[in-house]
């Protein structure tokens, strides 16, 4: 078993680290204050080819793969989990088309998504519940060559930013009659709804997407009618969950750095608190959570890169890395004492950001349900 990364991965990490520190770090304070996505950062990411990491080369991407994607998002989220989350959901939107689309659809949409000329989402969740994708109320009715789609999606990452929305909708009376469609934001009847005010991930958009009698051509159906949940969950499993998990890795890195720095600098009883065993054990817990999460996340990505079935492993990575991020952020705040609750310190941001990763791409309960199928099967 070889745990070493390739030269290519190492150089990618170095470049992403520099990008995070040089381009993203100066924006973090403003994002916290205004909750606005810095579009110039998005443009820089597009220029570096970051949107097309998992899109094959013949479709305009670089096809570097899932492990490269994890390394990239980890380094970005180390500086800003909000940017990490936005970026990873762009991949997820494109991933649903790559995984569920036919050749024409791939050729039509993926080159622009790879270069960042256009952005995509994957919109499944509705007010009727995210955990139960069969409970959606959005409908799509076929009349002639056009589907008419009506409904409301909520908690959609990049809702107001994206140009291409992959949405699930009910196409029949049966409980499982759900299909997935590609909807261009220029379609009459499409409009963004409310933009949420979130506790964390400030600067990344989460909001509503509203479809009112949106007429889309038949060719925009992804996969077959009635396969919608499979197509959408395929995208969430291969892209959304690993991507969210990698954001957790980023936060864990940030926590370890912030906690150790503070523990070495803060003097109590005449010496740095890093010399107190209780503090050391907390730092050790963060370290262990980071190492464990990284192994799970990278392993899941490697399985995807080698075309293995990895539902349980992906769920394990998502569950573990995001729960670990919340734990680590709490410990980082604790180590900081009152300073940890102050906006000048990143600890409180990690804490607020980490919690948002728990329900994104499926809650921890849902991940448990997916994982447990493996031992029980």
């Amino acid at each position, binding site marked *: 078993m070889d745990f070493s990364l390739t*030269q*290519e991965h*190492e*150089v*990618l990490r*170095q*470049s992403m680290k520099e*990008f995070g520190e040089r381009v993203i770090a100066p924006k973090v304070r403003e994002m916290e204050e205004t909750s606005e996505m810095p579009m110039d950062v998005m443009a820089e990411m597009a220029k*570096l080819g970051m949107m097309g990491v998992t899109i094959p080369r013949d479709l305009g991407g*670089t096809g570097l793969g899932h492990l490269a994607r994890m390394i990239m998002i980890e380094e970005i989220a180390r500086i800003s989990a909000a940017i990490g989350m936005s970026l990873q959901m762009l991949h997820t939107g494109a991933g649903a088309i790559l995984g569920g689309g036919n050749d024409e659809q791939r050729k039509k949409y993926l080159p622009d998504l790879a270069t960042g000329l256009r952005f995509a989402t994957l919109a499944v969740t509705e007010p009727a519940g995210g955990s139960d994708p069969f409970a959606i109320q959005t409908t799509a009715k076929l009349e002639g060559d056009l589907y008419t789609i009506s409904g409301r999606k909520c908690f959609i990452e990049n809702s107001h930013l994206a140009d291409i929305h992959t949405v699930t909708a009910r196409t029949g009376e049966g409980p499982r009659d759900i299909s997935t469609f590609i909807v261009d934001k220029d379609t009459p009847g499409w409009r963004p709804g409310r933009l949420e005010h979130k506790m964390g991930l400030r600067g990344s958009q989460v909001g509503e997407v509203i479809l009112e009698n949106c007429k889309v051509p038949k060719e925009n159906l992804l996969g077959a009618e009635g396969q919608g949940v499979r197509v959408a969950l395929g995208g969430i499993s291969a892209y959304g969950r690993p991507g969210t998990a990698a954001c957790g890795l980023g936060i864990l890195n940030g926590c370890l750095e912030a906690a150790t720095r503070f523990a070495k600098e803060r003097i109590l009883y005449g010496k740095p608190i890093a010399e107190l065993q209780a503090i050391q054990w907390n730092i050790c817990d963060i370290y262990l959570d980071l190492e464990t999460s990284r192994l799970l996340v990278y392993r899941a990505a490697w399985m995807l890169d080698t075309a293995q079935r990895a539902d349980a492993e992906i769920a394990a990575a998502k569950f573990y890395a995001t729960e670990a991020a919340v734990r680590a952020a709490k410990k980082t705040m604790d180590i900081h004492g009152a300073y940890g609750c102050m906006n000048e310190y990143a600890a409180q941001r990690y804490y607020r950001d980490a919690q948002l990763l728990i329900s994104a791409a499926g809650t921890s309960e849902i991940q448990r349900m997916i994982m447990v199928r493996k031992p029980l099967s």
Partner: protein
Amino acid sequence: MKIVVCVKPIPDPSYWARLPLDPKTHTLRREGIPNVLGLLDKCALEEALRIRDSCGGKVTVVSMAPLSTLGTLYQTLAMGADEVVLLSDRCFAGADTLATSYVLATAIKKLGQYHLVLCGDKSLDVGTGQVAPQVAEFLAIPHVCHVLKIDLLDGGRVRVKAKTDDGHIILETDLPAVLAVHRGINQPRLVSLMGLVAAREREIKVWGASDLEVDPARVGLVGSPTQVAQVFAPQRRRRGELLQGEAEEMVRSLMARLEQAGVMPT
């Protein structure tokens, strides 16, 4: 335009606090410390890439370093260099700047025709600033250090703006020449994902002592006249002195001291 860029992988500055000194040789113990390219080396490469991209040609990166730095040098290919030549041999180890410059210059000659050699002003770890001028001397071509701007002129000449202690100077010289770039000449590009893919097609050659036909007495530790006698952190002492008395008297006394310290304008 054929451009050679000399770079040196250095220990990652974020590990410097943990970098031990060998008590016998007074050199850094680098085992287990990851390598990176220094900023100035990246500036030199960036400048080379810009020149190539505007007027065509080829950029060759040359580095004398252990084989373990292959991964770090791969970064230069991903930034856009056309090829990398790693000069690596056991007998090159322990080289001072003279032995290093000798090996670099020998390699540059072996590469054949070249128009420009770009280096960083100094490496970030040792920082002597001696290598670029020494390479130029071995190649018997002109050199300029602290370069802030490079303009290619017609007729195989180049105009450079170079930083001086109290401003800058504009110089013109014939090519080939060695130019050592100063911080701020440019903002080096980040490696793009497209750059990573393109780098797969490019090559890192490794040349040893036998490939270069160097004089064994002039390389590595044996070829290095410099010996590190002692390494220490300089002590900076500050001393406060309280002047007392009448204001006028204190000002006069202060002026006298400033004059004595040589900091008053004449």
